[in-house]
């Protein structure tokens, strides 16, 4: 049996066609609130059940409970605040009980049924979630750039935010049917933001030895300058799957989500999202969801000890590397040779090679994957 949704019920807050049409006819009568891409993706994830059991943006009690206890008020594990901020001017014209239309890129995305507007402590938010208040941390910087108030309440999705990757988009209810139809009783989720190198492949295949299916679930969303573009990542994975994975054992589908870079806390959040997609297991490697040196290399694995009731089993892996002496991809648990024999898989190194037109060596990356990347004139985010 694949994973039970977090909290027991898969949330569906996508408006049925008749109600949706009626609301769209009256769209100009709603108070308008523009939201950024990350919040639009949050609304989408709430509506399609990726964030089950959340039905909307968090109220103050939920927000504080998540900050202090890493749990919702009903005791369910939850580590990342899902909140919508507004500035003072906006807060002055909205009040609890109002229905507000959330717009992204001039498209009405969702109706927010406002239940609460509250002030919050940004420093406490950053300290609890990111374990730092250093503005050089991108998650902290984001929090400090937010409006003074948070606005909470249930959302109803009217339109999906624009999606250039429809073909790769499966909702939790769809992946659950897919896993069932494939006869998978155990499924491991893999989160990625990068083109695959051999370290990733080895990690995924090591996990796949123990379960029926592999769910490769790249995160699509805001990226930093110099990162691989989303279409490049998908194309690289398509090629890898076609050439090196048994067709019946792996699935590629995206999730649209804004990374918080909250390291250990975000690893738990990533696991919960994949549980809602139906995964029974989740791969947690080195420095999962980390940035800079804010978190220990395996801190994102250690935090799972605090959640015996998470309902998805983490699979922990040490870092893989290629050992010239072993002639294989190994990690420190199975390789006795010293550092001089080891080729570390470095995303930075791979990006540098690609940028200078060099094909990464086959110990680093499958030639077909490298070729797929070179098909793009500029594979990097400008």
């Amino acid at each position: 049996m694949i994973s039970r949704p977090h909290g027991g019920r898969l949330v569906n807050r996508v408006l049925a066609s008749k109600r949706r049409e009626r609301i769209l006819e009256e769209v100009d009568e709603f108070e308008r609130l523009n939201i950024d891409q990350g919040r639009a993706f949050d609304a989408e994830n709430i509506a399609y059940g990726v964030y089950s059991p959340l039905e909307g943006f968090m109220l103050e009690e939920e927000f504080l409970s998540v900050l202090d206890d890493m749990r919702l008020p009903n005791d369910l594990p939850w580590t990342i605040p899902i909140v919508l901020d507004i500035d003072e001017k906006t807060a002055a014209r909205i009040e609890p009980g109002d229905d507000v239309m959330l717009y992204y890129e001039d498209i009405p995305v969702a109706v927010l049924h406002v239940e609460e507007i509250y002030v919050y402590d940004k420093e406490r938010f950053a300290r609890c979630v990111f374990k730092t208040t250093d503005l050089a941390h991108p998650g902290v910087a984001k929090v400090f750039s937010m409006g003074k108030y948070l606005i909470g309440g249930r959302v109803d999705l009217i339109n999906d935010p624009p999606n250039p990757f429809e073909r790769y988009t499966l909702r939790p209810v769809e992946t659950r049917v897919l896993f069932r139809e494939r006869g998978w009783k155990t499924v491991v989720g893999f989160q990625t933001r990068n083109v695959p190198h051999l370290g990733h492949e080895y990690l995924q295949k090591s996990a796949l030895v123990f379960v029926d299916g592999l769910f490769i679930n790249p995160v699509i969303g805001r990226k930093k300058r110099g990162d691989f573009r989303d279409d490049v990542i998908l194309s690289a994975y398509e090629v890898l799957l076609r050439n090196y994975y048994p067709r019946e054992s792996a699935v590629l589908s995206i999730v649209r989500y804004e990374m918080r870079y909250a390291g250990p806390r975000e690893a738990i959040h990533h696991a919960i999202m994949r549980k809602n997609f139906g995964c029974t297991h989740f791969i947690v490697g080195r420095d999962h969801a980390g940035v800079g040196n804010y978190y220990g290399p395996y801190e994102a694995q250690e935090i799972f000890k605090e959640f015996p009731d998470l309902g998805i089993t983490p699979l922990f892996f040490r870092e893989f590397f290629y050992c010239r002496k072993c002639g294989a991809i190994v990690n420190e648990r199975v390789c006795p040779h010293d550092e001089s024999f080891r080729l570390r898989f470095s995303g930075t190194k791979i990006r540098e090679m690609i940028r200078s037109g060099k094909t990464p060596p086959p110990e680093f990356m499958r030639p077909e994957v490298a070729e797929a990347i070179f098909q793009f004139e500029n594979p990097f985010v400008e």
Partner: protein
Amino acid sequence: MNEEKQRRKYTTVSIPVSLYERIKDLIKDTGFKSVSDYVTYVLREIVAMHEAERSSEPFTEEDVERIKQKLKALGYL
């Protein structure tokens, strides 16, 4: 921080004193700060296990047919 932590409400559950003593002994030199911490941890694990056993799929057979068509069209099935 104490004020922050005090928001969560607690209640009392009775267990035999002998069991309490066994747990107290067991958790020495572990990460558990108190018998309550340990009991909460164990209960959460067991409750989650029982909840998982009661699980049912969140879709009807009608949904399944519609979704299967989409999955076939996209090449997933």
